[in-house]
């Protein structure tokens, strides 16, 4: 937390917003907009008109072209005020004293309407796609909800595809995303709190949580951290993630991101908090543990025994992705007595033309595969996969034939690359890719001893990490205390046995299944016997 203070020590003075009160006069307000604040903003549309029987009142609407639903403004703002309002004959007294109330409550046929006191607030709303309604002689600005821009439809999440499970994914629009979650949680205790982050970008962030299950301290902490973010723009949740996570120096992602509304909803059910960020399909989930990064949505939809086997496989993949090249270097350069004699001799035979030490050999292949991987992302889809295969096959084959690397090295590198893709969380996978190089150097220096020391460093670091107060390696680091949390780690026990919420939920809110459900299962089992 120290660095927070360092980074945002002066935030109080900076963040003071100057508040400009709107003028009473419409003309002056419009002048302020047109000639000062929104000068050279040609996408702003102004429409001045008069209201009332005798055109007694002047009014104007301001909006940004492209962000608003024009039909809505035409039909329900302009038409209502310019035509319908004239049809009704209001009481003169009301007209005089409370024109604004009249407009708001009786004339504007728009479902969502608000009022702001300052010009700045009004502008932010306008930039978010609302329409500002200014009325001559009125010191507040009415905000009419008119958001309606072109957006991508809901499509299947690409990074977290599943075979079985819902296919809808988040889009770039925050409201869609919150609604996708809300659809899954029809409970009044699901809270959605809005924040705005980014001095200039003013990005909307919705914090969603279960009021009773989520930890109060966590919410306080999150509130502090979100308010402390003092940056001009947040374009993606990835940026926000770095600003609010515990240790940005760490290689490990301490905040989970997801494209899947079902994953987000499931997290909320477990007392975690979801941050839906506008303009990105990736929502954030806090707190995050290493264990949650290893879970995939599908684990809960497939049968539990299969899910368990897959979980175990994933942890095994982590080991391969981290250690395979390092072990290759450690064993071939330092401890050839570890491997069976025949293999050692075969290795010696195939490696005898390789002029480099094993570490250089490994680095050549590892860097090559990283280049291929990076190039594969840049290349357009159809070519990308072809180049990937061609590059991988040809370079691997040619490198062996040219005597630059041994054939086993190619196998090791390939299996390492494949294993790293088996990790469900991409963030974690790329971190492991980097750590693998560290292990490689450790192995080159000290052999197996070096690998073990590096493992210790990684473990110490992981043990010291916390995500919003939850130990990163929870529940492994206190498995005696949190024994029931182990049910959803390297194994995934049947749902009926997952009767407790994990460490994120407060002590008195641990129960997930009610007794009735458990009893019904018991009876069925009894009958089978």
């Amino acid at each position, binding site marked *: 937390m120290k660095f927070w203070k360092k980074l945002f020590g002066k935030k109080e003075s900076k963040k003071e917003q100057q508040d400009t009160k709107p003028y009473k006069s419409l003309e002056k307000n419009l002048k302020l907009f047109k000639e000062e604040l929104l000068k050279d903003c040609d996408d702003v549309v102004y429409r001045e008109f008069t209201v009332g029987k005798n055109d007694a009142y002047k009014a104007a609407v301001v909006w940004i072209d492209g962000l608003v639903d024009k039909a809505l403004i035409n039909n329900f703002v302009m038409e209502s005020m310019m035509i319908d309002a004239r049809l009704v004959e209001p009481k003169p007294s009301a007209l005089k004293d409370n024109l604004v109330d009249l407009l708001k409550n009786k004339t504007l046929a728009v479902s969502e309407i608000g009022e702001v006191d300052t010009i700045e607030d009004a502008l932010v709303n306008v930039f978010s796609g609302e329409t500002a309604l200014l009325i001559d002689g009125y010191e507040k600005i009415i905000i009419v909800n008119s958001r309606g821009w072109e957006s991508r439809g809901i499509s299947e999440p690409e990074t977290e595809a599943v075979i079985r499970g819902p296919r809808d994914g988040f889009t770039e629009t925050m409201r869609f995303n919150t609604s996708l979650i809300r659809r899954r949680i029809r409970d009044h205790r699901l809270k959605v709190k809005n924040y705005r982050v980014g001095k200039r970008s003013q990005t909307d962030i919705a914090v969603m949580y279960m009021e009773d299950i989520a930890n109060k301290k966590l919410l306080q902490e999150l509130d502090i951290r979100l308010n402390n973010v003092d940056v001009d723009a947040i374009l993606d949740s990835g940026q926000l993630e770095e600003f609010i996570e515990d240790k940005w120096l760490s290689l490990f992602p301490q905040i989970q991101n997801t494209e899947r509304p079902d994953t987000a909803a499931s997290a909320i059910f477990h007392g975690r908090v979801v941050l839906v960020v506008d303009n990105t399909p990736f929502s954030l989930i806090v707190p995050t543990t290493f264990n949650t990064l290893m879970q995939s949505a599908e684990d809960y939809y497939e049968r539990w025994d299969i899910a368990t086997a897959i979980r175990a496989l994933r942890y095994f993949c982590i080991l391969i992705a981290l250690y395979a090249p390092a072990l290759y270097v450690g064993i*071939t350069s330092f*401890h050839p007595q570890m491997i069976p*004699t025949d293999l*050692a001799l075969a*290795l010696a*035979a195939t*490696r005898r033309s390789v002029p480099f*030490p094993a570490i250089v050999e490994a680095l050549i292949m590892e860097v090559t595969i990283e280049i291929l991987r990076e190039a594969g992302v840049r290349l357009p889809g159809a070519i990308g996969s072809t180049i990937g295969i061609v590059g991988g096959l040809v370079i691997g084959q040619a490198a062996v034939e040219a005597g630059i690397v041994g054939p086993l090295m190619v196998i090791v590198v390939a299996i390492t690359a494949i294993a790293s893709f088996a990790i469900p969380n991409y963030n974690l996978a790329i971190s492991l890719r980097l750590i693998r190089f560290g292990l490689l150097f450790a192995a080159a*220096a*000290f052999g197996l001893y070096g690998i073990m020391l590096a493992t210790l460093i990684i473990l110490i670091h992981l043990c010291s990490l916390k995500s919003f107060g939850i130990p990163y390696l929870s529940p492994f680091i206190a498995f005696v205390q949190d024994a029931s949390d182990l049910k959803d780690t390297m194994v995934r026990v049947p749902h009926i046995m997952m009767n407790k919420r994990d460490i994120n939920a407060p002590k008195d809110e641990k129960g997930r299944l009610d007794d009735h459900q458990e009893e019904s299962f018991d009876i069925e089992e009894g009958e089978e016997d």
Partner: protein
Amino acid sequence: MKKHMILLALLMMTSAFTGCWDAIEIDQRGYVMSLGIDKYEIPPPGKSEEGNSPEEEAAVPTMAHIPEDNPRNRFSFTYVIPNVEFLVGESENPNILYNTVGENLYSASRILTTRINKQVFFGHMKVLVIGETVARDPDMLREVLDAIERDQFISRRISVAIAPDTARGVLEVEPLINPMTGQFMADLFRNKDRSPRSGGGIMGDVFEELHRWGNTVIPRVIPGEEDIKVAGSAVIKNYRLIGWLGEVETRALEIIRGTARPGGLTVKHQGKDEEHIVPIDLIYLSSEFKLDKTSDKIRVIKEVKTTGEVKQFILDPHQDLMEPQLIRELEALVCEKIKKEMKETIRKLQEEFQVDVLGVDHYLSKYHPKLWPEVEEDWDEVFPHIEINVDVETKIRRVGLTK
């Protein structure tokens, strides 16, 4: 944060400065698969003259110039290093045989590095062959075995054998089935079906027995033209080879020691009017000593239990194997034969070698801790005079597919 960086930098520096000492690439090592140890003997003058012709020297590049009368030349070591070029088919020679002389194993291996471009590496050593001359000298044998046990790379699971004549002679054979001698011998020792006609020959077990009372048996390895045979065993008494046991005697010894692997035994069955040769496949179930407490002399009884399967009888016999009576007869024959062989071996060990490699001492020290201290001091004298009885029980369980 700064502290972090300093720590990290220190770690990086240490790893950057190190990493040279122990990193030897896998293809830079010479894997000694088998090691043969002989006593260095000055070559007879006639032979050395013959071998000293320049052409011969060039033809055998692995031969070293051996200084003739140097007191440091006590041992002659033979290293078998597989030729990795042979594995990928780029060479005709399956093995590279190096022969050096030296005062001890360590310095000889050091001298060897002046002659090959690889690091001599014992981590994959499989077989140790000791020449008879070394085994007959207790000091030399103890020196060599200690060097083997002390070395951190040489496994305790390597096989050890003693060659009558020289170890080099054994290692020079290139067996037809697998010309890489080292692997061939390793496989030979590991072969699960290996008949009990030779001892186990696991280095760790040999060490255990030697540490106990200095007596043990080590398998005998005999070179042939194009094969190598492990059969029979050498009896070591007080770290010294005192004699050989034949193949049948070894089998009996292995049964007594309780270490015998499954093996065959052939008996002659006298039927009503004909004699059949009946080979029987035996599994030795248990082998236990019992001390007969009734007599005041030390009298131990060896109880052996085996089960077996009849492998051959005769086509269309008069009396088939479904008759329990016949089975009983066969069982009795087997018992008789095993008993006879065992008695013979026991007699040889007691009278000829006067060494207890049967395990009676071990048995007494474990199960009769009151009696043992009385005889421990002069067990070598006591052992030849104790009475050892043999009791064998055989059950023939299976007879194959025909009646």
